[in-house]
């Protein structure tokens, strides 16, 4: 079939219609994703953390990562931040004389950094090859190196700076906390929560963790209180006067909510947790994308007008040739 003007236009229209028909269903506007039914996560209570870094050691054992020595000496495992070799890190906040724990001025506090397992994760949304996925049941955001093409969009997209790329390796992977999904499959809990001696890192269902956070908020500071270790509702509890908490729990609303939540006595910004909108970035970006491609109208218009200009020039040339 010779490509006449008529045939070309006919073909273009048919293809456009087919695309529109195919994409009509997923082109719906993005809804704020709801918490998965069996969502699990962590509750990190900075006021309970004593900075022993047992979680970091346990994490290394569970994930087979090697210690990162400090720049000055080769004695201590002292990573400066999360990295492809450090999936969780305890960071210290320190102000002035650093006398009292959990006080903003002249005080100090600890914060555990690791993946927050967003309810609506940016890394999953931006991944062009579905190497980053969110488990439909547990909500754990995990990574499949076999799918990954190494574009590092997830690194750029994460508002918490969690995914880290193995820049020093020829065949590099991305590394991030996957909430010890292999341990969970064996019926165990994540290594950091398992080893934490004070219950600062607590594992459980997100709904239960949020209820626990609410219970702690209701305690009067100084009141005799019990704090569970390892998992919510475990018998392994310890007694401690209730601390003075920030008014909010971090991770209930931020970017549509996260499955890892934080409680602290020092403002979250000071602990390196960014102030973020309650709406997830994914909902905004996907809404724009899905609006643009809805019914393939925008591409049809774009390519239609391109075609128009091409045809006009072609006609002009044909006339000249004649």
């Amino acid at each position, binding site marked *: 079939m010779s490509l006449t003007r008529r045939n070309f236009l006919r073909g273009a229209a048919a293809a456009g219609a087919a695309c529109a028909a195919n994409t009509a269903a997923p082109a719906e506007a993005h809804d704020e994703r709801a918490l998965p039914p069996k969502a699990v996560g962590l509750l990190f209570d900075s006021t309970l953390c004593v900075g022993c870094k*047992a979680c970091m050691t346990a994490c290394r054992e569970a994930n087979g990562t090697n210690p990162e020595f400090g720049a000055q000496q080769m004695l201590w495992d002292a990573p400066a931040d999360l990295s492809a070799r450090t999936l969780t890190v305890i960071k210290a906040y320190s102000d002035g004389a650093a006398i009292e724990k959990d006080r903003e001025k002249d005080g100090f506090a600890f914060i555990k950094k690791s993946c927050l397992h967003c309810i609506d994760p940016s890394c999953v949304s931006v991944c062009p090859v579905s190497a980053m996925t969110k488990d439909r049941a547990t909500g754990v955001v995990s990574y499949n190196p076999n799918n990954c093409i190494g574009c590092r969009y997830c690194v750029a997209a994460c508002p918490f700076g969690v995914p880290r790329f193995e820049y020093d390796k020829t065949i590099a992977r991305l590394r991030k906390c996957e909430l010890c999904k292999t341990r969970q499959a064996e019926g165990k809990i994540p290594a950091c929560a398992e080893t934490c001696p004070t219950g600062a890192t607590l594992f459980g269902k997100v709904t239960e963790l949020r209820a626990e956070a609410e219970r702690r908020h209701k305690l009067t500071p100084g009141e005799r209180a019990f704090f569970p270790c390892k998992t919510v509702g475990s018998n392994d509890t310890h007694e401690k006067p209730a601390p003075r908490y920030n008014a909010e729990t971090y991770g209930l609303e931020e970017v549509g909510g996260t499955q890892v939540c934080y409680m602290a006595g020092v403002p979250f910004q000071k602990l390196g947790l960014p102030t973020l909108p309650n709406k997830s970035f994914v909902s905004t970006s996907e809404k724009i994308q899905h609006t643009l491609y809805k019914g393939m109208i925008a591409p049809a218009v774009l390519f239609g007008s391109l075609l128009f200009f091409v045809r006009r020039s072609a006609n002009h040339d044909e006339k000249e040739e004649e």
Partner: protein
Amino acid sequence: MLVRGLNDIATRPGHEPIHQEETVGVGFEDKAERMGDYMNDEILTAAGTKLGLSRRVFLQFCAGVAATLGLPADAHASIAEAIATKHRPPVIWLHFAECTGCTESMLVAEHPAIDELVLNLVSLDYHETLFAGAGHQAEAARKSSMEANKGKYLLVVEGAIPAKDSGIYCKVGGQTAVELVNECARDAAAVIALGSCASWGGMPSTGPNPTGCVGVGDVLKKQVVNIPGCPPNPYNFLSTVVHYITYGKLPELDNQGRPKFAYARLIHENCERRPHFDNGRFVQEFGDAGHRSGWCLYKLGCKGPETYANCPSVLFGDAGGGCWPVGTGHPCIGCTEKGVGFERPIHGLADLKFVTPSAASSRVIEEQGKGVSVASAAVLAGGIGVVVGASVAMAKNLGKGHLPEHTQHGEE
């Protein structure tokens, strides 16, 4: 036995070891010879006779005390000379609301046989547990000693003082504890509160505390030397007394009146189980695999991270390494620390005391360079220049290569 025990103290890390008697080497002979430079044999022999010790054993005792005090290597010479030549200071020793555990632990200490040394080193003029006399006779001895040694005697108080209702809950010889401690402290050269009870009230002062027990410092309304512990390490007390005899003054104290040589560091800092803490190996319950492997006792409630004492280095009971509560597998209860021992639940978790978070802790915000340096600006400007120049050159040449071809094509 005596000698071996002393050597155990003296061979603590950070101190020059003294060789055991069986393997007396050049080091010990050197020391003994150096001692000869400071004092003559007559003094040493006199001192030995005074304490009922041989010359060698006496010198080793002095070295042991110097080591406990953390004094320089030559200090044992001064100590030996002081003990040999100076007058024995009289000591009045009072007991109040307590279990007499402090005295008991002193009596069972083996090196040097502490009862003998305390009785000979000092002139113990009044001590209810050790007294042969009783009743009015004993009280008269106390009064006459106080009168004769005005401003020279040491007052040692053991046990808390029931202060409620004018102190009527504890009386000795018709006088209340409050009256006695005030009367004896008035002309004392120094007051030493021995044990946690005397230091701040200790176990008797914990709730409900019906008799209103308080420490010696609270009754006298002044800072006294506190040697807390339940019981306190006998060598911390002995070293304080020897320091006083040798230098005529008390050792340096911390803000709670505790001698710094013994109470300047957290138990956590010198604990032999510390590497397990740093690696997250915690005993989960008594008798589990971790407990049998000697892991960290923090999760069982060890108060080492908030308790200041030299237990891990001086140890207890003269039985060698590992012989202290944490060494035997029980969490520290914080007996030397006011507000921790007897007040916090034994199996409650300790709050870690940090002066500041360790330097090895990564900071929340790592410092980054700010602004533009001259070098980076130069590199950036150079780069921009190259790009702009290339663009201009390219724009100028645009179409030039095409023209002849086009002309050629037209000619065809």
